[in-house]
């Protein structure tokens, strides 16, 4: 072999040897810092919805007017947000699309809400007029054309960008102050008018402009809502993104969290609920007595919806549900995928009646991954998509224990307003608890503690309910103090569901006894303030029973025990035990006297059944009477003298 050939061969051999060595080193480095292969999640956009309920209330929408791809947040249709108001405050509510409404008989309806999406339906004017003349109540959101001409201000001032609420008739001063604090500039639009409407009552003003007025029409009443009510409600509850639907990080972090969507400032009062209750129990109730299902089991004052983080620790995280089971409370434990809880642990959770939810991750690196290749050493790891994470959990659970609830780990969210909801819905979850207040300023960051149905940008709803977490962490005296204040307010007036999240690993890993004390005290304080300590699943079941229940009311004037009285006759179907209703304390200048089951008429007078133990409550500053129901059909006469 020539010297040259030898040199060439040596170079090749040398190159091969060093290539192999470098390849081994590269492989070792790659295994220590693997490439993450992200999987695309399935997506389920918002879907249309229609509800046929036996109810006094009907919401009407026209999906054909919804822009499927709005260019900005303010171009979205928010008409379906009205559903949140009536499901939260009343329970059973019908929701009809425009074609259904055009053909339907309105005989069994007492209140019709014509949302902004149907504001141009001049052709419905005769039908609405007939309904009003028969004594119905019509709520119109930003009406136009002939509908506006029925009994609304002229609207000649056109659309305006508002600043703040300035007046609310009958609303307690501190609640009004809470509403006044809201900067409405990017939350809604109002319709200005050239002058006041004759014989109308002004209920609410924004920047001094009447935006809720009511006026008699025939035997009925027209309530005009001259601002985008759905938009403000959505901006408060679901959060306000930038106009292009992106979310701006308002903290010193590269990751988007749900708290970046909050727009309320002070979090001590549920401002969305204040507004909703003002509208329903203040404005509408003035036009007709509003009867609604109480949102909490057994007539309790509120709910403490408890959830825990499992953090991949497996059975170590079960000690909190273990304690809750000793006083018959329940909670939701959010578990990572792949699931580390053993079969024995799952059996225990079933015994404790603890709901197993899924703590998912959207894009966060280092979580929910599996190596591709050899055992746990691989240069490539696959990161599960949300639906794959959910599937790995479902594979390990019984068919009757499928996770219903989800929660984003650490509140991490998508950079787009609704992409995360689209993925959660596609993964098959029906409840989500990712919306959470900032840890350092807990409270009603999303203006409510009650669950709401989120809207997609196409104006349609997701097939899930969002449960905002009011206290994402509860470990300090200050946080406990704030919880105590909220519970106290909830017991006396605001009646809220307060979502509280406890980290089941925090105390075991850092055994500061204070954390344990605060956790235990939270339950005691909640019990003291008559709050139902429960899981998301239990609350959801109860809420579902509320909206599938039946409730019809009518007022009649007659003599009871030889006294002139007004009787509110109620026919109610309560599908679950522990349900209650509220009725107004005052009706047509008469005060609540008593409620009785199945009042029977004998000639001119009536024979009274035993009275029902009723309790006065204040709901957002409005006096009401809480009446317990029995499971099944209830015929109740509420007597006002």
């Amino acid at each position: 072999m020539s010297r040259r050939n030898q040199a060439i061969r040596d170079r090749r051999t040398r190159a091969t040897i060093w290539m192999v060595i470098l390849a081994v080193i590269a492989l070792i480095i790659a295994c220590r810092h693997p490439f993450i292969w992200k999987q695309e999640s399935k997506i389920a956009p918002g879907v249309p919805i229609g509800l046929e309920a036996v109810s006094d209330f009907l919401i009407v929408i026209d999906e054909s007017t919804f822009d499927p791809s709005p260019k900005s947040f303010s171009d979205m249709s928010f008409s379906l947000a009205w559903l949140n108001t009536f499901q939260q405050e009343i329970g059973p509510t019908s929701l009809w699309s425009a074609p259904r409404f055009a053909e339907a008989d309105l005989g069994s309806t007492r209140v019709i809400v014509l949302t902004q999406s149907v504001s141009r339906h001049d052709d419905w004017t005769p039908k609405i007029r007939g309904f009003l003349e028969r004594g119905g109540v019509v709520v119109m959101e930003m009406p136009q054309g002939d509908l506006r001409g029925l009994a609304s201000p002229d609207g000649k001032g056109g659309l305006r960008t508002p600043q703040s609420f300035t007046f609310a008739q009958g609303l307690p001063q501190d609640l009004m102050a809470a509403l006044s604090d809201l900067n409405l500039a990017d939350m809604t639009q109002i319709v200005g008018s050239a002058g006041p409407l004759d014989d109308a009552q002004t209920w609410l003003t924004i920047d001094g402009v009447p935006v809720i007025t009511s006026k008699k029409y025939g035997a009925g009443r027209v309530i005009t809502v001259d601002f985008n009510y759905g938009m403000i409600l959505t901006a408060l509850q679901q959060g306000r993104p930038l106009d292009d639907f992106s979310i701006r990080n308002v903290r010193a972090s590269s990751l988007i969290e749900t708290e970046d969507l909050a727009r309320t400032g002070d979090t001590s009062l549920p401002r969305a609920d204040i507004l909703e209750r003002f509208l329903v129990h203040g404005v509408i109730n003035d036009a007709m007595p509003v009867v609604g299902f109480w949102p909490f089991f057994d007539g309790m004052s509120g709910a403490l919806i408890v959830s825990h983080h499992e953090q991949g620790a497996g059975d170590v995280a079960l000690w909190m549900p273990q304690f809750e089971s000793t006083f018959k409370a329940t909670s939701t434990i959010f578990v990572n995928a792949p699931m580390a809880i053993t079969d024995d642990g799952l059996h225990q959770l079933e015994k404790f009646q603890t709901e197993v939810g899924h703590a998912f991750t959207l894009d966060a690196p280092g979580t929910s991954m599996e190596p591709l290749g050899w055992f746990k050493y691989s240069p490539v790891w696959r990161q599960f998509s949300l639906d794959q994470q959910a599937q790995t959990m479902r594979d390990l659970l019984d068919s009757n224990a499928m996770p219903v609830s989800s929660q984003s780990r650490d509140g991490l969210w998508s950079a787009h307003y609704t992409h995360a909801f689209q993925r959660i819905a596609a993964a098959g979850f029906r409840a989500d608890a990712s919306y959470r207040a900032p840890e350092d300023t807990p409270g009603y960051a999303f203006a409510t503690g009650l669950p709401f149905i989120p809207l997609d940008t196409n104006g349609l709803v997701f097939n899930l309910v969002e449960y905002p977490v009011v206290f994402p962490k509860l470990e300090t005296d200050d946080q406990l103090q704030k919880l105590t204040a909220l519970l106290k307010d909830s017991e006396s007036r605001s009646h809220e569901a307060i979502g509280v999240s406890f980290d089941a690993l925090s105390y075991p890993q850092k055994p500061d006894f204070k954390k344990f004390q605060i956790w235990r005290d939270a339950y005691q304080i909640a019990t003291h303030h008559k709050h139902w300590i429960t899981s998301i699943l239990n609350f959801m079941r109860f809420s579902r029973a509320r909206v599938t229940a039946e409730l019809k009311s009518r007022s009649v004037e007659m003599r009871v025990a030889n006294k002139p009285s007004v009787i509110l006759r109620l026919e109610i179907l309560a599908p679950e035990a522990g349900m209650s209703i509220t009725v107004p304390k005052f009706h047509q200048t008469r005060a609540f006297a008593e409620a009785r089951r199945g009042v029977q008429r004998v000639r001119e007078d009536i024979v009274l059944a035993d009275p029902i133990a009723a309790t006065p409550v204040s709901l957002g500053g409005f006096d009401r009477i809480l009446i317990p129901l029995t499971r099944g059909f209830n015929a109740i006469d509420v007597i006002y003298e």
Partner: protein
Amino acid sequence: MKSDSSWFHRFKIDLILIAILAVGALAWGIHRHPFTLSTSDPFAAAVMPQQLGQSSILLVLPDNAPTAESFPGYDFSFAWYNALSQTFGPFSIALVRDIQSAQDLRAQLIVIPQKTAEAFSESQIQLVSQAVQQGASLVIEMPPPEWAPLTGTKRRTKGSSAIKRLTDAPNSPLTSTWREQLLNIPLDTQVLRIDSLDAEPLSSDSLLLEIDGGIAHYRRPVGAGFVFVLAFNFGQAVTALQQGRPGDALSIETEQPPRTSDLVLNDKMRANTVPYADLLKTHVFGAIAQTTPVPMLWPFPNAQKAALILSHSTGALSDDAFLAATPEIEAGVRTSWFVTPGRISPDALRRAAEKLDIGVSLVRPPVGRIYKKIGPDFFQPVAVERSMAEQKTALSRSLQKNITACKIAQNAWSHDYTAAFRRLAAATCKLDLSYGPTHAQEFGYLFGSGFPFLPIEKNGLPLSTYELPTLIDDAVGLETLPEEAPIHLLKDALNTYHQPVTVHFDADTMLTHPSYLTPQTYADLLDFARTHDVWTTSAEQFLFYFTTRKLARLLYAFHPQSRTLDVDANLPDAPFDYTLALPRRSAPGTLHALWLDKNSVDVDALRPTADGLFLLIPVPPGAHAIQAHYQ
């Protein structure tokens, strides 16, 4: 060959570089996983302890004893040493060979264990007889026939090692409830079969205890004094309970690596709420106080009636472990913290030591091993296992303070009955807390007492490490215990048995046995102790009081004519008041007047013990003259 040689030559540089890379990788690997060298623990020998305090109670010990081959062959004389320490505090000791004249027996109460009694000569027995005739009380265990003039029985009786049962306690000083519990004591002892006395019939109030219907414990007046005869081996019975019962060959026979709870006398003791060993002691010594007033230094300071001794291990946690001490620190309570060397930073350790008492958690096989790496920080190819002594030394060094308390992780023990004690003694541990519950459902007085004791070596001498039994250990999983058991133990310790209740909570239990009952039980115990005047303290502080009171001088004399008990006490300087306990009632009458340093003390205002036998008098350190009048 030539070709090969030239190949190596041509690739010499590459091969050198590859070799350097290989050596580097190998060194990195060895640094990460160094060669380990094992170490064995040294043993310490048991020695005769020095007399610490001085008292009118004299314990006479045998000059020497052969090393036992089996448990029944043990010399249990030092069980009396433990019993007197726990009950009376200070006492004097003497060896048999020291008893040469009446001067050597100048005591009000003479205690002679079985092996001592067997070693006494005729002349020495005569000296004891004279002392009793002049008014001393004698407690004698399983006396041989030579003691007949004092015991009233001279028949040579046969000893039996079969496990016996107490059948009656007709004149026991104990309350009726305690008497019932006394009869349930699991006994492992030898007995002398005595059916009746040779000298005279036993009077109706003299029989104190029966075993299987035979006489087991009786009282006999001799001259001006009394003789208390124990016809069973009290020392063996107490040792089998307190120190545990090995197999007859003095080994712990378990398939798994042994734990301390494998030493319990029987399975009934694994979940036991009655301190049986202390009931037996109270019966024996209470019978003496019932006959003649005897003062004692109560085992709790400031006239308190119970102690909650809180101990913790840092476990697998690092500096955060001490967060669990927050409630104790806030309450101004010093508690015991057992730290594994190397897991806690020196700064955190020093900060903790300012407010807590730091002990060492000893990690030894089969639980684990702790290594010390040898070499500079960047390359440590060898790791040497640390023995118990080295672990303690390492921790003491980082704390810059001598550590006295030890606890073996997971209560791991040796197959040999006393080997672990010898290792602890060699590591100069003054106190060990390894005796206690280890398995699920175990709690309470597994070893019949909450008081510390000196373990007895096979040669009958005590080892220098006090063993303080733990009653509650959360590592067993508190959910496996009856939910109220821990708080009931503490309540009973305060209101019934007057015991120290040592509880152990690992800082990492919520990671290993997570249950809400762990923090809840801890909080309940701490809260109860705080609100019920239970002395909440560390094992070290408790042992300090326990041993300091042994240094006291406590001389007493009872004058039958004036029915007056004179006590001359000299109590060592200490940051607490001692508690003097005097019999409330005795044969001469009821305590009705009391003077402390000539100042009258209101007897009715004194706190009584739960059994009503004693009144508790707080006495500050220093010299005191106490006079008690019985009527």
